[in-house]
Every structure is written in structure tokens, then in C-alpha cells.
């Protein structure tokens, strides 16, 4: 019983994989409906599923599989033309199958369900009758009176041996009195392609070896052949196939282009044009047989063949299918398959019999698919399916081995015996190599998640009434499977955004001078130990004016602030929580849960997200994620006697503040420590205080000596982490914390260091939130008033904002502020009518600023009896300005509105949504301390 379960499980896994490919193939088919290879693939997938389901007795699956297979069989044989109703029905089929499979995971039998409508629809379509339109995911009742299809398709076509040239050739087309839309399109397209082909042939005469040109010609012929067979134009098909065979050999290097070949190819173009002309006027091919041409092409292909063993076939039966599989299908579907194969045999000219062709299927390289797009890889003999859990435990073990090795190495360094040292070195190299290999086993190509996107984009585009061409580049780019899983949702979300918001509806695109169909490019590559994933659309781009307006509307900032943001900063607004510029919420996106979550999720795995956009020209999102999560580079730092690991990905720089005459440069603004870094204020988190490592609780934990600061970045905000000591970086193996420690903030896991001790890994984002350092930045008070949006951008200035008596807000430029101090009220002394305090063994004269500002009451003392003093330095002397509560340090565009007549003020401006007066410091000082006047003008 258990063995059977195992088989069923395998069946499920395999079927899921196949279904995922199915989605992709269906979407590809919509673009090139005549792609026989894809049709063949699809047919095989459903056939396999049907057979396996039959074996297990899953009747619903079997019937659904059969219905889809039936329709696909007819499509593949060119007896039907694919239309979007068929694609929809087939997708619905695949969805229903997937639903049943999912349910089979948990229960041994299928659930009951009525698939009759769906199956009936598929059969109707297979019989060439229009079926009622199926919505993508549900099955409506069949309409009672299906109108007849314009071009009737014979119910069952006798297996026409393709070598018989004339019989039944133009299939259904012959009966059609007028040329239908599709055919006309085919003719037009082919004529265009031919013109290009002729150009390429011309160029090839000058450069007969040009591989790109040969490939281009080959592709044109390949398309022509596929389309012709799809429309049932057998003569065209045979001619194209013969030419294609020749080109295939040229492309593979088995032949080189001769003048004779070029001439024959030109002849071929003429013949094809003739046929096209006939089709355009009469809807059918000319009665002429063109045997000479085909023979000529075949001769050129075959006679000079360098290696006869090469598979010359290139057609009806695609890909390196396994032989037994092929044979079973032959038995079951004798007519179409045999016809297709013998067609190959004859058209491909060389006297290879069927058996030898079969032989050619076996070596995987021999019949490699013509284009490089990934098709069903038949790797059964060289690959083994391994449970992911096993890989994970293998990875863990290798992690242990790495740690064990790390512990051993120091001993070897002390050891004199060369044999021992050599043995450890060997162990070292092997471990490193093993680690690399095992990590590689966990790598999966990104196509594992991308495979869902063609379907997603198709469905989205349909839902939004848009046309989108999805282009995937770098599908083979590999990354760790846990990361793959982690980027899946963010990617899906970003793609949704691009289709829903980025790409415009066709009419709008045309009006903007773009092609009606938008282009969505997904590109992945490796770069410097990271995986880069780019999502580029050529849509409308991000309207920064809208973003700014939205930010103001949502109360995130004032209009003046919004106008003052540079483009980069405005773009970053998109990452604020709850931000959306969508005018209306669609079911696709625009609910405002979005970019911030995407960004956070990416940051959680050590990734970053970068956004570039040009208004009207499109948007590029650039994701950078590490290759693997299990082993990460980290910086070790100690604090309070413990060592902590800080992931390198969140690290910006390391600082060491030496104690100077003014202390070590760490200042407290109302308990919040800050320091200056290159003129900017850097909020600090004292690790010992945050993690309560200090022996004395309640101690602020400001370092007395030199301070070591690790500057990190969390959610786009910089802050400094004050630690006791910074050690060396190390590669660490991340281990999750046990259940009992799950709720503990600030830690992302733990690792075992080279000396065997455990070190906790700091979660920088968690730490930022826990300490409030980011919260403080995020929670700017929302604007209750908005000044009219400034059109000109004012120069930015950094201001120190404080209260001055009552709730009045005042500001001074930060440049003139040397330090912020608090003095106990009692320490203020008087000398010569002047208030002073002793400050750094000097005398600091104090100025009560409020007294010099018109209509401003004196500030109240702090509850603890201390006063706040802004130390102002000018001309080598310092003056203490006595102010009220210090609010903040902000960098804002300053738009000063003069307030004439108010003594002590230069004017007022809106800072952080509050009207804030800008002190006229020179004026005040002139009045208070004439000796210091002239200092501190505001720029």
C-alpha cells in the first residue's frame, strides 16, 4: 500500500510540473498558433496524464485528460485552427485537473464533480464546432445551438501518407469560397517575412558564414513551415520544410552556403510568392507540384552531407522523446503520428528509414530542439528526484561540517607536525568544495517560478483589457530554493503592478506613439554574488507629480515638503506603508498593500529593491537578492560581554568616534542619542541599552571612551549601532531560534562561531523597530494644514526645531549650533548682570532668547528643573541660548515668509506641518551681546 502511495505521490509531483509547463505552452500557442512542437508537447502531457490517471483509476482525471488530448490531437495534426475559445477551454481543463490533483494530495480518491460541460465543450471544439465561450475558470452550460463554423473541418481525415503529394492536400481550405481573415493575415505576414528573407539572402552572399543571418533565415522558414501546415497548405509546407532542412544543416555547420544554394533559395522564394498569390486570390494553392524545387533542395541538403548519421529530421515529432513512449503513442494513434513521421522521412530526403530515425532520438544531443527555449527535458537517466527535506538536512550537515572544520583549523596552526597540518588542509579544501556542491543542489533556475508568469500575465492582461508581450531573459539563472520561494510573491506582485498600472490600454499606447501591445521584460542574471532580477515595462512610468499629490492627500507630508523632494525621494514615497496612486482599486492591484510589503519581504531575505522610472517611457524595478540564505557573511561585534553577528547585507560602514574636547561626539536629544556623520544627523541605537545588557538597568549606557558604531540600514533608514567592540567579518551558518525564543525581538537567528560559542544574529530591521529609531522617522505627524503647493523647489536646510515659550515653534540653522546641553537650573550663576554657566571649564554666557522675540513668553523649565541650552559658536566664542523643549532636527526646503515687524524673527516657514519662526540670531545677539554680533547669518 505504501509503495502505491509513493507512486501516486510521484504521479502528482510530475503532473504538477507538467501542468505548469502546460500553462506556459498554451500562452505561447496563442502567439504562434501553428507551433507544432508546442502542440505536440501539450498533447503528450495530457496523454501521459490521461494514461497515468487511467492506471490509478482516477476517472475524472482520465476523462478530462482525454478531452483535452483529443482537441490537441486535432490541432496538432493541423485539422483545426487554434482560437482563443480553445485556449480558454484547454486552460479551464488544466485548472480543473490541477484542482483534482491538489485534492488527491490529501485523499486517496477523487472528489465527485461534474465535468460534463467542460468535456462537452472540448469535444465540440474538437469537432470544429464553436463552443460557448468559457470564462477562464468556470464552466458555463453549453449553448444549445452552436452556429456552424465558416470552414468545415472533415470529421475524420484519413491518414494521408504525406508522401502522396496531391491527395486531399489543401484539406478544408478548398471548400472555402472566400479567403478568411486568418488566412489573409498569414499571407500578409509571410510576404513580409519573405521580403526579409530575401534581404538576408542578399547579405549572406557577402558573408556566407554569418551564423546570425543563417539562423534568421532558418527561423523564417520554420515559421512558414509551421503556419502552412497549420492552414493545411501542404505544398507550401513541403517546400518550406525542404528549405528548412537545408538551412538546418547550414546552421549546424554541416554544410556551407554555396552560390547554387542561394540561387535555389531565391527560386524557392519565387515559388512561395506564387503560391501565396494563388492563396490570396482563390484561397487555395496552385495545382502545380514543384517537385523539381523540392528535389533540388533535398539534393543540396543530402548529397553533400558531411556526416550521414546526423538526424536530418526536424519536424512533425518534436524533441527528444523517449522511445518507448513514442512507440506506445504510435500504437495508440497510428494515423496522425505515422503520417507525420513518414512525412518527415520523405521530406527530409535522405534515405533514412524509420528505424534509424528512431535511433537518432536516443542520444539526447542528436535531436536537440531547434530553438533554445526550454522544452521538456528528458533527463530521466541522468537525474534523480530528491526530497527537498533531504537536501535541507544535507545542507545543515554541511553547515555543521564547516563549523567543525573552523574549530579544527586553529589547532592545526599551532601544530608542528606536517602530516597533521596537511591532513587538516585537505579536510579544509574538501569541506569548502562540498559546501559549494551541496549549495548547488539547492539551486534552482528562476524559471521554476517564472513558468507561472506567462499565464498570469495573459490572464491579467485580459482582465485589464490590455495587450502585453512578456519576454523572459536569463531563465537559467539559479538561486537557492528558499530564496526562490521568498521572491515569488514579491515578483508576482510587481508583475501585477506593471500590467495593471504600468502598461497602458492599447488605445492610450497608440495615442502615445507606442505599439498597442506593451512589453514586459523579466531579466535575471548573476552579478557579484547576487542575483539581479529586473522587471521592465514600457508603460506610462510613474507620474511623480501624482505621487507627490497623493502623499499630500494622504497626509504624509505637506505640499511644500512634497514639492521639495527630489525625484529620487519622491519615488521612495511609493514604499511607504499604505501608499497607492491607483485611482480605483481593481481586483488586480491598487489596494495599497503593496510596495512596502514587497520591500520589507525582500529586505528580510537580505535583498534590495530599486525603482527607476521615466514618465511616459516605462518603469524598471531591480531586485537584488543573495544567492543563498543558509551561509551568510556577517560582521561580529561584541557588547556587554556577548558577541553578535550583523548580516553584511545591512551593513553600510563602521565608525569610530574618538573622544575629543567635546566628548566623543554622541549627543542626546531628549534621551535619543545621535551623532553627526558628514554633516548629517545619524540616529543611534545603543545596543547595550536596547538589549538591556548593561549591569545597571536604567543606565543610558553612553560609552565614555571612544565609541564603535556600526552604521546599518533598515527599511531604507540609516542608523548607527553603538557596540563595545567590532571584530572581524566571518561566514556564518544561520540557525533558526527554537520555539521558545520565537517571540523575542531583534534576533534573526543564531550561529555557532569558530570557537564553538553561540552568537545571536541581529535582526537589524527588528532592532530598528524595537528601539523606535525607525518609528520615530516614520511617524511624522500628518499634516493638518497644507500650504499651497510650492512650484519652485527651495534650497534645503537643516534646522534645529525647538519650542520657545508656550507652544510656539522656533528654529535655527543647525550649522550654527555647536552642541545641545541641559543644565540644572541651579547651576546658572550671574556675573555682571549676565547669566552664565560653567561649561567645559569655561564660562558660557547665556541668552534668554524669548526675551528678544516679540510677544513670546519665557519658556518653562523642564519638570526636573533643568533648562535646555543651544550652544552657539561664533568668532571663537560660545554663547548658550536658553530655549524651551527641543523638538527635532529636520532637513526641509525652507520657504521663508517674511514677518515684518516681529522683533527677533527673520520670518516664518512651515516646518513639519507647523508654522515655525526662524530666529534672527544676529539681531538677537546684537541686542544681547553686542560683542558677538555679526555672526550666524542665515544663508
Amino acid at each position: 500500500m505504501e509503495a502505491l502511495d509513493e507512486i501516486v505521490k510521484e504521479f502528482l509531483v510530475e503532473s504538477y510540473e507538467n501542468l505548469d509547463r502546460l500553462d506556459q505552452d498554451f500562452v505561447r500557442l496563442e502567439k504562434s498558433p501553428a507551433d507544432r512542437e508546442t502542440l505536440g508537447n501539450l498533447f503528450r502531457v495530457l496523454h501521459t496524464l490521461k494514461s497515468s490517471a487511467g492506471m490509478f483509476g482516477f476517472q475524472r482525471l482520465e476523462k478530462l485528460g482525454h478531452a483535452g488530448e483529443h482537441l490537441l490531437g486535432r490541432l496538432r495534426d493541423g485539422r483545426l485552427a487554434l482560437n482563443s475559445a480553445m485556449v480558454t477551454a484547454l486552460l479551464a481543463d488544466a485548472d480543473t485537473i490541477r484542482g483534482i490533483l491538489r485534492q488527491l494530495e490529501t485523499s486517496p480518491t477523487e472528489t465527485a464533480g461534474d465535468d460534463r460541460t467542460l468535456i462537452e465543450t472540448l469535444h465540440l471544439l474538437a469537432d470544429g464546432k464553436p463552443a460557448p465561450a468559457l470564462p477562464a475558470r468556470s464552466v458555463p452550460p453549453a449553448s444549445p445551438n452552436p452556429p456552424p463554423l465558416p470552414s468545415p473541418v472533415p470529421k475524420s481525415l484519413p491518414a494521408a501518407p504525406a508522401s502522396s503529394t496531391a491527395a486531399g492536400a489543401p484539406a478544408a481550405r478548398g471548400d472555402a469560397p472566400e479567403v478568411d481573415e486568418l488566412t489573409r493575415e498569414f499571407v500578409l505576414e509571410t510576404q513580409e517575412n519573405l521580403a526579409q528573407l530575401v534581404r538576408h539572402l542578399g547579405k549572406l552572399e557577402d558573408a556566407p558564414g554569418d551564423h546570425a543571418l543563417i539562423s534568421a533565415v532558418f527561423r523564417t522558414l520554420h515559421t512558414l513551415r509551421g503556419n502552412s501546415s497549420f492552414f493545411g497548405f501542404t505544398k507550401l509546407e513541403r517546400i518550406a520544410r525542404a528549405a528548412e532542412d537545408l538551412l538546418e544543416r547550414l546552421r549546424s555547420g554541416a554544410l556551407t552556403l554555396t552560390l547554387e544554394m542561394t540561387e535555389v533559395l531565391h527560386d524557392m522564394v519565387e515559388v512561395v510568392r506564387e503560391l501565396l498569390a494563388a492563396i490570396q486570390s482563390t484561397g487555395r494553392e496552385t495545382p502545380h507540384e514543384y517537385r523539381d524545387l523540392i528535389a533540388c533542395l533535398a539534393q543540396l541538403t543530402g548529397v553533400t552531407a558531411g556526416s550521414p548519421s546526423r538526424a536530418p529530421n526536424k519536424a512533425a515529432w518534436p524533441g527528444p522523446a523517449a522511445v518507448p513512449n513514442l512507440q506506445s503513442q504510435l500504437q495508440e494513434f497510428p494515423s496522425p503520428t505515422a503520417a507525420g513521421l513518414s512525412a518527415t522521412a520523405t521530406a527530409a530526403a535522405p534515405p533514412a528509414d524509420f528505424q534509424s530515425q528512431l535511433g537518432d532520438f536516443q542520444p539526447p544531443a542528436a535531436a536537440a530542439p531547434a530553438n533554445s527555449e526550454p522544452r521538456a527535458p528528458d533527463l530521466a537517466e541522468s537525474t534523480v528526484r530528491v526530497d527537498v527535506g533531504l537536501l535541507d538536512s544535507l545542507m545543515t550537515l554541511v553547515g555543521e561540517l564547516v563549523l567543525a572544520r573552523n574549530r579544527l583549523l586553529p589547532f592545526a596552526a599551532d601544530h608542528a607536525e606536517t602530516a597533521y597540518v596537511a591532513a587538516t588542509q585537505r579536510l579544509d579544501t574538501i569541506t569548502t568544495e562540498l559546501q559549494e556542491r551541496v549549495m548547488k543542489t539547492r539551486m534552482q533556475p528562476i524559471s521554476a517560478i517564472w513558468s507561472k508568469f506567462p499565464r498570469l500575465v495573459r490572464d491579467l492582461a485580459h482582465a485589464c483589457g490590455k495587450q502585453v508581450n512578456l519576454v523572459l531573459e536569463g531563465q537559467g539563472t539559479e538561486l537557492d530554493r528558499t530564496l526562490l520561494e521568498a521572491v515569488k510573491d514579491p515578483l508576482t506582485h510587481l508583475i501585477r503592478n506593471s500590467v495593471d498600472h504600468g502598461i497602458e490600454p492599447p488605445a492610450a499606447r497608440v495615442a502615445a506613439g507606442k505599439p498597442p501591445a506593451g512589453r514586459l521584460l523579466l531579466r535575471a542574471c548573476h552579478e557579484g554574488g547576487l542575483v539581479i532580477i529586473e522587471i521592465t515595462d514600457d508603460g506610462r512610468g510613474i507620474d511623480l507629480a501624482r505621487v507627490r499629490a497623493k502623499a499630500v492627500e494622504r497626509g504624509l507630508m505637506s505640499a511644500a515638503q512634497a514639492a521639495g523632494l527630489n525625484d529620487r525621494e519622491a519615488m521612495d514615497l511609493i514604499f511607504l506603508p499604505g501608499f497607492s496612486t491607483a485611482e480605483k482599486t481593481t481586483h488586480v492591484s491598487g489596494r495599497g498593500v503593496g510596495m512596502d510589503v514587497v520591500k520589507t519581504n525582500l529586505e528580510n531575505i537580505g535583498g534590495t529593491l530599486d525603482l527607476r522610472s521615466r514618465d511616459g517611457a516605462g518603469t524598471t524595478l531591480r531586485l537584488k537578492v543573495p544567492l543563498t540564505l543558509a551561509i551568510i557573511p556577517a560582521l561580529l561585534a561584541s557588547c556587554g560581554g556577548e558577541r553578535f553577528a550583523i548580516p553584511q547585507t545591512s551593513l553600510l560602514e563602521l565608525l569610530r568616534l574618538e573622544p575629543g574636547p567635546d566628548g566623543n561626539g554622541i549627543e542626546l536629544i531628549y534621551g535619543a542619542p545621535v551623532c553627526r556623520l558628514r554633516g548629517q544627523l545619524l540616529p543611534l541605537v545603543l545596543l547595550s541599552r536596547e538589549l538591556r545588557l548593561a549591569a545597571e538597568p536604567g543606565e543610558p549606557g553612553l560609552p565614555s571612551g571612544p565609541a564603535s558604531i556600526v552604521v546599518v540600514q533598515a527599511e531604507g533608514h540609516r542608523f548607527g549601532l553603538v557596540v563595545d567592540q567590532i571584530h572581524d567579518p566571518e561566514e556564518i551558518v544561520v540557525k533558526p531560534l527554537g520555539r521558545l525564543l520565537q517571540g523575542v525581538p531583534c534576533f534573526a537567528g543564531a550561529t555557532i562561531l569558530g570557537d564553538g560559542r553561540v552568537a545571536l544574529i541581529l535582526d537589524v530591521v527588528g532592532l530598528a523597530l524595537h528601539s523606535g529609531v525607525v518609528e520615530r522617522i516614520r511617524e511624522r505627524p500628518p499634516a493638518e494644514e497644507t500650504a499651497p503647493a510650492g512650484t519652485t523647489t527651495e534650497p534645503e536646510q537643516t534646522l534645529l526645531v525647538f519650542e520657545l515659550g508656550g507652544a510656539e515653534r522656533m528654529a535655527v540653522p543647525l550649522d550654527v549650533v555647536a552642541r545641545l546641553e541641559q543644565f540644572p537650573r541651579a547651576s546658572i550663576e550671574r556675573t555682571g548682570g549676565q547669566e552664565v554657566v560653567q561649561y567645559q571649564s569655561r564660562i558660557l554666557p547665556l541668552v534668554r532668547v524669548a526675551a528678544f522675540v516679540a510677544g513670546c513668553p519665557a519658556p518653562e523649565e523642564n519638570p526636573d528643573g533643568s533648562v535646555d541650552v543651544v550652544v552657539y559658536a561664533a568668532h571663537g566664542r560660545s554663547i548658550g541660548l536658553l530655549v524651551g523643549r527641543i523638538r527635532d532636527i529636520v532637513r526641509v526646503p525652507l520657504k521663508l515668509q517674511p514677518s515684518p515687524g516681529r522683533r527677533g524673527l527673520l520670518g516664518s516657514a512651515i516646518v513639519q506641518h507647523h508654522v515655525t519662526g526662524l530666529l534672527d540670531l544676529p539681531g538677537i545677539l546684537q541686542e544681547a551681546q553686542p560683542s558677538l554680533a555679526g555672526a550666524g547669518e542665515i544663508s
Partner: protein
Amino acid sequence: MDRTHPYTTFRLAGLLFGLRASAVLELTRHRELTRVPLAPPTVAGLMNLRGRLVTVLDLRRRLDLPPGPADARPMHVVLNTPDGPLSLLVDEVGEVTELSEADFEPPPESVRGVARELILGVCQLPGSLLLILNPATVANLPPPPAAPRPHPTPARL
């Protein structure tokens, strides 16, 4: 008649405790612990058990017993729990005793508070009273009083 099972015994704060040996992974000597700041006080820290990360519980705190001497070098009784290994700090490891559940009596009235939930029963041994711990409840900490992490929930997109 009654089947007996082996029980690992250990001393803690002058009391004798026992745990079903099948729940015990191993006994190890004192090891250096890494403190986990902000963790519940019952969590003594983390240790490296041959490359495995093991959470260590301060069993004295867990059982509401008075703290031990500062220079104590407690030993580890490592439990095998569904969430991985979990170590209990004990003063001294005793011998393994075969006991039958029929010998268990309900804990005496004098045992109150949290210990009552953790003690399956008591067993009269010559000269001492053996308190049998319930490994499942010992490993279950009361939910931390700390507020949940104010991290934005990575909602499904």
C-alpha cells in the same frame, strides 16, 4: 505485573526530581551559555550541543525555586521535544531508577503554584521523595507577556 520504566533522576535546590528516561536525549556537563537578551527570564540561554543549537531553560526559575549560588556550574538534562532539543539546568545528575507508574502518588498539598502543573506525581524512595516531572509541560512556557513584535506582517501579496 506492572511494567516499569527507567527514570532519570537529578537534584535541584535540595529536591530530587525524575524524568522518564525516554524523554531525555542526553546528560551533559556544564557548558558556556550564550545569554539571549529580551528573552523570557526562564530561558537561561543558548548552547552548542555538537553543532546543534539548544535552548537552555533555567529549571529553578521554571519551578519557582530560589536561585542557586552564583558560582554554581549546573549540568544539563537535554530533553527531546517535538520542537528539537531543549536543555534543563540542574544541580546534579543522579542515577537511573526503574519505576512503575503504580508507585506514583498525586503531588502533596504542600506543592503549589506552577510546580503543580509540572509534577506528574511523587514517588516514595528510601530516604527521599522523588518528584516526577512532566516533560511536555516543562517545555511549554507560558506565553511571553511582551507585546508581539511591531513588525509589519509580511502579508501574502
